[in-house]
C-alpha cells in the first residue's frame, strides 16, 4: 500500500532511506494480539477504592446548598471529597507554558457552567457503593440562563459564562479578544474580483470515544510518593498538572502510562489523575477513578464545534485574489486547549494557496457547553473542510476543473505567504499530480507539467504586487448569482492551453531565493 516516489524531487535526494518506506513491526504488537499489553486498569492492588463524581445536571446554575450527610454514612463510603478539599482548585492546562489564566475548578464551588461539570466525589469500597452513595447527595440549584451559540455569546448583554473571561472571549497577550491576520487589501480585491462567494460552515462537537475510557489509579507508595497508572496521552503534562492542583512537588509523583486504549486527543486533558491522587492522599489507599461510557461522552472533552465564514474573490482566469475568514471556536465553559486551536487555525489560513489579499478574525468563545479540547489536527481540520468546500464552489463558479483550480493556486517555492514568510518545500502540486494519476483524473498537459519549484514568487505573490490586478475590474458578484462556467469551458479532448494569462514569466526574478536555501547535510541534499 505504501509507495515511495523517489522520482519526485529526485535531484534533491541523494540519501538512500533504510527505514522509511519499509514495513516495521510495532514493538507492542505481540502484547496487543495476546491480550497481555498492560493498560492502566490492568494493574491490581489490594484494598483498591473507587472514586465516583457527582456531576451537574444543569448547563448553568448557582449551587445553593449541598447536603452529603446521608452519602457519607452510606455502606462502603470511605470519604467525601468536596471543592474545599482540593488544594489548588483553579487551573488551566496551558498554564504549564504560561498561556492563559487559571479558569477551571476541579470541583465546582458556587456555580456550574456546563452539564456534567464535577461537583463532589465519593470514595468507596466498590464503584457500585460509590454510585449508590452519590444518589443520596442532595444539591439545591438556582438555574441560570445559558448560552450555547458562539455568536450569541459575543452579543452585548449575553450571559457571561466564565468569570475569568467575562466577555466570553479568551484573552490573547493580556489584551486581545481574538487572533487576526492581515495581508494586502481584501476589500479592494473583492471590488475588482470577477466573482465573490461567501459561505458559512458549521461543525459539530465530536467525541473521540476511545474504546478505553479515561481513567487512572493512584497508589500511595512506601516513601510518601504516589505511583499513578494512567490512560493519559500526555504523561508529563498530566504529572505537572496533578502536582499543581495537589500543591505537591512533582518529584512526589511517579506516572506510569504509555499503553493507551485510544486517545485521538481526548486523553490530554488530565481529567482524572488530580482527583485520584487527592483521594489516595485523603484515604491512604489506592484509588481508581475511571470514567463510565456515559461520562466519557458527556464530560470527556470533545473536538470543539467551529463556525467558519469564508469569503473568496476569484478571477475568471482561476486566480484567487482575496480570501476573508471569520471563525468562532466553541471552547465550551473553560479554555483547556481551545485558545491554542485558534492560534493553529490562524496560522493555517488561507490554506496551502498563494493568495495576495488575506484577512482573518478568529475568536475563542466561551459557551455553556462541555469544554472542548484537542482532536486530530484541531484548529486546522475544520478550517480545511471549510476552505476545500469553498475551493470546489469557486471552481464551479468559474467553470474550472477543481483540481486544476487548486494546482493553479497552490503554493510554490518562493511565494510570499499571508504570514509574511516565504513558501519553501512546497509539494502540493506534486502530491495532487500523483493523486490525479492514481484516480485517473484527467489533467491537461500544462497542469501535469507544473512544478512547485518553478515560477514561484515575483508577481504571483510578491508583497509589492499583492494588490495589483492584471485583469480589468469587473462587477463584483455573489456566488449565488454567478453564472457558471463562463470562461473556462473544458471541451472534451481539448489540448488548448488554459486561459492563465496571469502566470508570471518562467524566469524567476533577480534575487529569487529558491534553491539558495537548500543545503547539503550528512543525509544528502534536502529541501529546507
Amino acid at each position, binding site marked *: 500500500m505504501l509507495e515511495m516516489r523517489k522520482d519526485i524531487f529526485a535531484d534533491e535526494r541523494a540519501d538512500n532511506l533504510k527505514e522509511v518506506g519499509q514495513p516495521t513491526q510495532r514493538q507492542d504488537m505481540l502484547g496487543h*494480539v*495476546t*491480550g*497481555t499489553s498492560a493498560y492502566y486498569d490492568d494493574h491490581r492492588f489490594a484494598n483498591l477504592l473507587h472514586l465516583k463524581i457527582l456531576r451537574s445536571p444543569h448547563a448553568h446554575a448557582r449551587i445553593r446548598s449541598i447536603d452529603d450527610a446521608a452519602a457519607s454514612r452510606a455502606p462502603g463510603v470511605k470519604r467525601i471529597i468536596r471543592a474545599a478539599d482540593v488544594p489548588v482548585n483553579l487551573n488551566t492546562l496551558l498554564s504549564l507554558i504560561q498561556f492563559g489564566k487559571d479558569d477551571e475548578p476541579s470541583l465546582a464551588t458556587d456555580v456550574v457552567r456546563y452539564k456534567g461539570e464535577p461537583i463532589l466525589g465519593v470514595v468507596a469500597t466498590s464503584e457500585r457503593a460509590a454510585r449508590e452513595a452519590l444518589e443520596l447527595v442532595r444539591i439545591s440549584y438556582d438555574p441560570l440562563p445559558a448560552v450555547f451559540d458562539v455568536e450569541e455569546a459575543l452579543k452585548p448583554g449575553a450571559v457571561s459564562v466564565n468569570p475569568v473571561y467575562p466577555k466570553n472571549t479568551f484573552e490573547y497577550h493580556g489584551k486581545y479578544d481574538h487572533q487576526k491576520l492581515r495581508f494586502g487589501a481584501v476589500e479592494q480585491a473583492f471590488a475588482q474580483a470577477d466573482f465573490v462567494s461567501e459561505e458559512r460552515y458549521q461543525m459539530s462537537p465530536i467525541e473521540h470515544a476511545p*474504546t478505553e*475510557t479515561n481513567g487512572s489509579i493512584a497508589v500511595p507508595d512506601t516513601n510518601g510518593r504516589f505511583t499513578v497508572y494512567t490512560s493519559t496521552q500526555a504523561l508529563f503534562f498530566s504529572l505537572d498538572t496533578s502536582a499543581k492542583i495537589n500543591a505537591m512537588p512533582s518529584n512526589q509523583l511517579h506516572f506510569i502510562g504509555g499503553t493507551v486504549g485510544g486517545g485521538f486527543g481526548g486523553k490530554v486533558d488530565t481529567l482524572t489523575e488530580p482527583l485520584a491522587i487527592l483521594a489516595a492522599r485523603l484515604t491512604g489507599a489506592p484509588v481508581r477513578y475511571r470514567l463510565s*461510557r456515559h461520562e466519557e461522552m458527556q464530560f470527556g472533552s470533545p473536538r470543539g464545534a467551529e463556525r467558519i465564514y469564508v469569503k473568496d474573490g476569484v478571477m475568471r482566469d482561476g486566480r484567487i485574489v482575496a480570501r476573508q475568514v471569520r471563525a468562532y471556536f466553541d471552547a465550551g465553559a473553560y479554555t483547556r486547549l481551545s485558545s491554542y486551536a485558534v492560534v493553529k487555525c490562524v496560522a493555517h489560513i488561507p490554506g496551502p494557496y498563494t493568495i495576495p489579499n488575506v484577512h482573518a478574525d478568529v475568536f475563542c468563545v466561551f459557551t455553556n457547553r462541555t469544554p472542548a479540547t484537542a482532536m486530530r489536527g484541531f484548529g486546522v481540520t475544520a478550517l480545511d473542510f471549510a476552505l476545500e468546500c469553498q475551493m470546489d464552489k469557486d471552481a464551479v463558479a468559474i467553470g474550472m476543473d477543481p483540481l486544476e483550480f487548486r494546482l493553479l493556486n497552490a503554493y510554490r517555492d518562493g511565494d510570499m505567504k499571508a504570514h509574511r514568510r516565504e513558501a519553501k518545500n512546497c509539494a502540493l502540486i506534486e502530491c495532487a499530480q500523483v493523486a490525479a494519476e492514481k484516480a485517473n483524473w484527467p489533467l491537461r498537459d500544462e497542469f501535469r507539467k507544473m512544478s512547485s519549484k518553478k515560477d514561484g514568487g515575483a508577481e504571483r505573490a510578491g508583497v509589492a504586487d499583492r494588490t495589483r490586478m492584471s485583469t480589468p475590474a469587473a462587477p463584483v458578484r455573489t456566488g449565488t448569482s454567478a453564472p457558471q462556467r463562463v470562461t473556462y469551458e473544458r471541451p472534451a479532448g481539448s489540448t488548448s492551453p488554459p486561459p492563465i494569462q496571469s502566470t508570471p514569466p518562467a524566469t524567476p526574478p533577480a534575487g529569487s531565493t529558491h534553491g539558495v536555501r537548500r543545503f547539503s547535510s550528512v543525509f544528502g541534499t534536502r529541501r529546507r
Partner: protein
Amino acid sequence: MKTSIQFRLNDEEVATFADSGSNLLDVLREGIGDLSVKGGCWQGTCGTCTVLVDGMPRLSCVTLAESCEGKSIETVAGLRQGAKLHPLQTAFMERFAAQCGYCTPGMLMAAKALLDREPNPTRENVVDAICGNICRCTGYEPIIAAVLDAARAAPRRS
C-alpha cells in the same frame, strides 16, 4: 451476598465467589484475574469485552456470570497454544490489524467464533462477524484482511 461460580476458562476449571448479579466481565477480570478481557462501555454496545461462551461470541459486560455456570469460556488469553500463536494472532500482526490494541481481544474472539464455524468465510461473513466490535482507530480494513488471511493459513478441516 456472594455466590460461587464455576466454569471452564480456556480449558481449565476455575471457580470464584462473586456478588450475586455480577457480570461475566467483572468476574473474569476481578474474580479470576484474566485481564486479557477489556471493558469498553459496560453497557453492551462496543464489543470490546467479547468472549466465547460455549463457542458463541458474547458481550461479557452484559452477560450474567451466574448464567455461565458449568459452561466453557474462551478469552484471548487462551488463544495461543504455548509459544505458538493462533493463525489469527499471526495474521493480525502481519496485517498491522491493531493500533491501540484495546479492541483487539474482542475482535480476535469474534473472528475466532467465525472461523470455528465457517473455516472458509467470505469478506461479507467477516464483516458480519465483527460488525458488533468497534475499533476507534478505524483499522477495519486491515482487520478484515487479517481474518481472511488467517482462514487461508489455517489447516483445512473437512
